[in-house]
């Protein structure tokens, strides 16, 4: 079954990206670098899993199922906003950046 293969690949890709996002959350040395994993990798991982679910339900049931796209778009829109709010809070609390971060002087007081 070709659709099983497509669904499997999308699911596996999504799972790997979600796992990488969490690894980035744990591995990175400071907050600003930790932010990169969850805002990017996890969003793409979710999109992969949701598209897999969309294809699966479209094939197994008679109707075409497109509502999973809604969650993908919602996450795609909200992920940058969450990241922006978090980095704003981090700058406000003057969290330490990793030593050797260039351009720290560009942060202005708010």
């Amino acid at each position: 079954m070709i659709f099983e293969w497509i669904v499997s690949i999308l699911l596996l890709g999504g799972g790997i990206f979600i796992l990488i996002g969490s690894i980035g959350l744990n591995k990175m040395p400071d907050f600003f670098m930790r932010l990169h994993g969850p805002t990017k990798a996890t969003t793409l991982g979710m999109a992969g899993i949701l598209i897999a679910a969309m294809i699966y339900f479209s094939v197994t049931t008679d109707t075409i199922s497109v509502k999973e796209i809604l969650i993908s778009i919602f996450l795609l829109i909200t992920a940058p906003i969450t990241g922006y709010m978090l980095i704003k809070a981090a700058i406000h609390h003057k969290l330490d950046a990793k030593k050797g971060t260039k351009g720290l002087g560009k942060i202005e007081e708010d």
Partner: protein
Amino acid sequence: MRLEAKVSWLPTPFRSLLLFVVWLLLNNSASVGHLILATILAIFIPLLTFRFREPQPLILKPGLALKHFLLVLYDIVIANVQVSILILGSTKKLRPAFVKVPLDLSHEMPITILASTVSLTPGTVSAEIYPISESINNDVHEPQKYLLIHVLDLEDEEALIKMIKQRYEAPLKEIFQC
């Protein structure tokens, strides 16, 4: 940049389209009843609520907007693979940096879209827009605005700024005509 729509009973055409599509997606059907209900909702909800918000610039080039959206989607996939490789590699080799990008855009809405694109795509997270202002009015005589971004692995600052300005900012200027 144009703030007012041409048709008075459709003040925000793209929000109406969005409502129409989201209603059909939520119900996962395209039957006649849902189409009629979605049309009614898409016309009346913006009519009732458009006074609550500041008028936002309209998309003047829908074709270009669609093209830019597809380009950004493609870039998201590429950038995610790159960031994944960076995450799995050695953390000691990474060169994090804060970079200030001067903006040509002046209105809030295109700047928000640009900041979101920058957050999602090339190994960067947008952090702040300078100068910080609490006022909502969009004066003509505003100071030059900057976007502060955090880069996970900076190779060449000039090249990165140039890439963001050419690849993501120029189409937005074209789409909103500002």
